[in-house]
């Protein structure tokens, strides 16, 4: 099958790419566009390290064909990182030791972003629910849950 041109918005900029059919968004981002914050922990949809936002919803980019994002808005960790500085979610992950090896971190931050954009006051259960597709072997999850709670407080203007 012939390659296809797909047009979509990536991190706020409209782009046009030429991809073979069934090329995943993960492969496009990492191998064609050099945006490597999106990780590739399993390429099976099992770990969430490749999570990107499509129109604000978290999606595993390793299972997502590029054709499916035609006309959509895709956001990666590069897209939410301000220059200079950090997004509040990045700041709290850093300051609350919600990171160890760092490999799952981009995916964790992306699902946190999707959650907090949708629900600025998530309860613990809602945070846990949002994290269930994302795997972390190092931290035991609790520091990540606490970081998201803290991010919500700061984004609502009453953090410390």
């Amino acid at each position: 099958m012939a390659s296809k041109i797909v047009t979509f918005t990536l991190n706020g900029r409209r782009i046009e790419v030429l991809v073979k059919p069934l090329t995943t968004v993960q492969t496009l981002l990492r191998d064609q566009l050099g945006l490597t914050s999106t990780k590739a922990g399993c390429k099976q949809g099992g770990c969430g390290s490749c999570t990107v936002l499509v129109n604000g919803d978290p999606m595993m980019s390793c299972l997502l064909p590029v054709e499916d994002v035609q006309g959509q808005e895709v956001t990666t960790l590069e897209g939410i990182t301000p220059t200079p500085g950090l997004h509040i979610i990045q700041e709290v992950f850093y300051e609350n030791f919600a990171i160890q090896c760092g490999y799952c971190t981009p995916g964790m931050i992306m699902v946190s972003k999707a959650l907090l954009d949708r629900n600025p006051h998530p309860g613990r259960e809602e945070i846990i629910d949002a994290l269930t597709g994302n795997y972390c072997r190092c931290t035991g999850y609790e520091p990540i849950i606490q970081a998201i709670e803290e991010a919500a407080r700061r984004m609502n203007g009453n953090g410390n």
Partner: protein
Amino acid sequence: MTEEKLNVVGQSVLRRDGLGHVTGKTIFIDDINFPDMLHLKMVRSPLPHALIKGIDFTKAEKVPGFIQALTHEDVPKNIYTILCLIGVGPDEEPVLAEDKVLYKGEQIAAIVAETEDAAMEAVSKVKIDFEELPTVYDVEEALKPGTPVLKHWGTNHFVYEGHHCRRVRFGDVDKGFDESDHIIEGRYQTSPVEHAPSETTGCVARPEPDGRITVYTNTQALFFTMDNTALILGVPFQKLHFVGGTVGGGFGGKVDVIVEPIAALAAMKTGRPVKYKFTREEEMRVSSSRGAWRIYFKDGVTKDGRILARKITTYADAGAYNRHTPYAVTKHAANIAGPYNIPNVWIDAYCVYTNRQPSSAMRGFGVTPASFALEVQMDKIAETVGMDPWAIRFINAYRNGDMKPHQKVVEDATLIEVMQAAAELVGYELPEKFKKMSSLNREEA
């Protein structure tokens, strides 16, 4: 304890690598790519035990993007040498299988191709003729006569200085059993477990203009991996340069030196950078696991709860090859009797081979199964003598100055202190005599 004034030791300063991690800018192996980089994928055994009668690459070679196939004949010293480097022999694991395979997934031939997809397609087209052999999976079965023998030295166990197993002999266990009121036995079995690091094992080997090879790797042990690679490739050490230090989780799974030698060989053969990184499926099914252990306890205990004798027979399932298991068995033997003061101890710890993927180091290597078995056994003892689980541990706890079964004097004991602190944490009121106990001296409880 003297309290020295410290500036920064003891402070929860933020992680040095934290900003890279939260921005996704930390460079992992997957993020290292070169324009002319090739990809290596492995032809693996579909059978757990078989003779290799022939390999046919004809169809694989026709896959667009195919560059080269490597077999054991291409490997200068076709032996994984990890244990010989730390003085534990003998050599036994080939880098690429020669005339036989001992586990499902064993590496037989490497395919190097322009893309990952091409390499995988070529792998699927390699045809191998096997003659299937009988298998052995159970550690105790493996030691019985008449089972298939996996090792060239004629046994299914590692030989420890002329012995079938690592032995510990301390005091007289038979005398201890005679003096005991209760004999308490237990069988404990742990399971193979996957390290499951977020980042799979991998490396990129790149030929440099000066004739050296740079290997970017997520190994847990940089020099160890480089030294092994040089031995396998038969090149002087200065030809290699290893760069690493950032690892997406290890837990012991990245000390086996499996990917680097073959990737470096492929880079030398092709003159181009080569990436060899496990898929998640390879990480789970082929890379070494935490080994399964089977542990038998026999304890002689007095009616007031003192353990007088402890006899342990334990089997580590190394899988098909040693990797680091013979080392772990010795570490296990040093720890399996537990942090208790027991006058008579007898331990036989076996390293046994079976037809499964090799097991190797994982967090708590050799000690995790020991702690599980012996701490469940301690509860069994408590129940038998009609005693509280806390009491049985306080009564038998080792203290500074005691002699361990491997004849080392206890120096840094704090078992009593952590039990006291844990009891306080959960609001469990310990009897006064246990509250007053200390690891620093042996005043009887």
